[in-house]
């Protein structure tokens, strides 16, 4: 597991439930800006994560042995946006091997499974699966 991810999980696990939501909200406000080349409608059409009810767009490329991740998430879904922002913070520019080995139960490890509806957790896991597959 990458250090970046470890650190994030540590922080989440060390605070109470309410603070975890604050952290998630914080992350939702910190998503990196989407590069020009992904801003077109065509680019969006290819990048939609179908399993997620919310509009989520993911672009991933290998740069050497590292994975680059870019994303766009609808503003009305801060929970999803926060989770995707965490994925970027944990995995963007990290060795592919580390990303491919990321835990599948990340929602649970972040201590969010009690506060996020099951349906929502399903979508988030689908997003994580996509990222792991891209790194494989």
């Amino acid at each position, binding site marked *: 597991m990458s250090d970046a991810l470890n650190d994030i999980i540590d922080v989440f696990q060390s605070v109470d439930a309410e603070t975890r939501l604050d952290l998630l909200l914080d992350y939702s406000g910190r998503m990196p800006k989407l590069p020009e080349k992904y801003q077109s409608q065509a680019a969006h059409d290819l990048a939609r994560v179908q399993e997620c009810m919310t509009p989520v767009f993911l672009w991933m490329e290998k740069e050497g042995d590292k994975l680059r991740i870019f994303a766009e998430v609808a503003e009305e879904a801060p929970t999803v946006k926060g989770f995707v922002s965490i994925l970027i913070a944990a995995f963007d520019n990290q060795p592919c091997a580390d990303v491919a080995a990321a835990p599948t139960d990340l929602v649970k490890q972040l201590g969010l499974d009690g506060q996020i509806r099951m*349906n929502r957790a399903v979508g988030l*896991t689908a997003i994580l699966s996509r990222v792991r597959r891209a790194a494989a």
Partner: protein
Amino acid sequence: MAQDKTYAHPEMLVSTDWVNEHRGETDKYRIVESDEDVLLYATGHIPEAVKIDWVNDLNDPIVRDYVEGDAFAALCSKHGISNDTTVIFYGDKNNWWACYALWVFMLNGHTKCLIMDGGRKKWVDEGKPLTKDVPKYPPAKFKANAKNPAIRALRDQTLAHAKAKKALIDVRSPAEFSGERTHMPEYPQEGVLRGGHIPGAKNVPWAKAVAESGEFKPRAELEKLYLGEAGLKPGEEVVAYCRIGERSSHTWFVLKYLLGFEDVKNYDGSWTEWGNAVGMPIEKTYQPK
């Protein structure tokens, strides 16, 4: 879209303009935001609104049931809601969860409830005031009422209803209705062991009841959907369901207050109960290719 006065109970809906005019009357009204996304309220909300969250506030943490009695009274009291307060619900996703919260309040016998038509999206789109400040209301006296079980269907009631060939509306997506979709592989505990629908149920996905703006469609269009396509007859007993009863409470609201069906019940156990329960009859229309 102007409010449709031909709804059976147009007084159950208030417009965003009306809420904006009256939101300061916090002794009479309590505005409640109830969203699918638990973080949305924190990003900005109607200044006088409090948040009531389905996951954290309305569910019993141990038993699959809703908070009731003293626990419900405590929730209301905390938000300064008294037995005389009119609670105005709004939320994201076409007032989906707002209707669910309203249904739980009605189930607990608090009938002074309204929906802000158009929900959160309309308020935001109209550029109406939003704040991140969380209002604090002095605790109110709230006496737990007798529950109103008439709006709720339990599993065996629903089975009897289905056997008697009475009206059932399944508000899930067509793929869930047909049995094509049962669960996502990574979350088996969210999954259902069997896919399909309750025999005799008609499929009217819940969001068909709303327009682009997030407001409910006019009565004429709703009648086309529910009486026309789904074949409901005025005055008949209806049970609506989905997976956990949250989408179907939206349809419950439509059938009861907009179309005037007097005997409508929300089967909140819904497919997560029916599709996992031993021996329940299932109709599966999905044919794998």
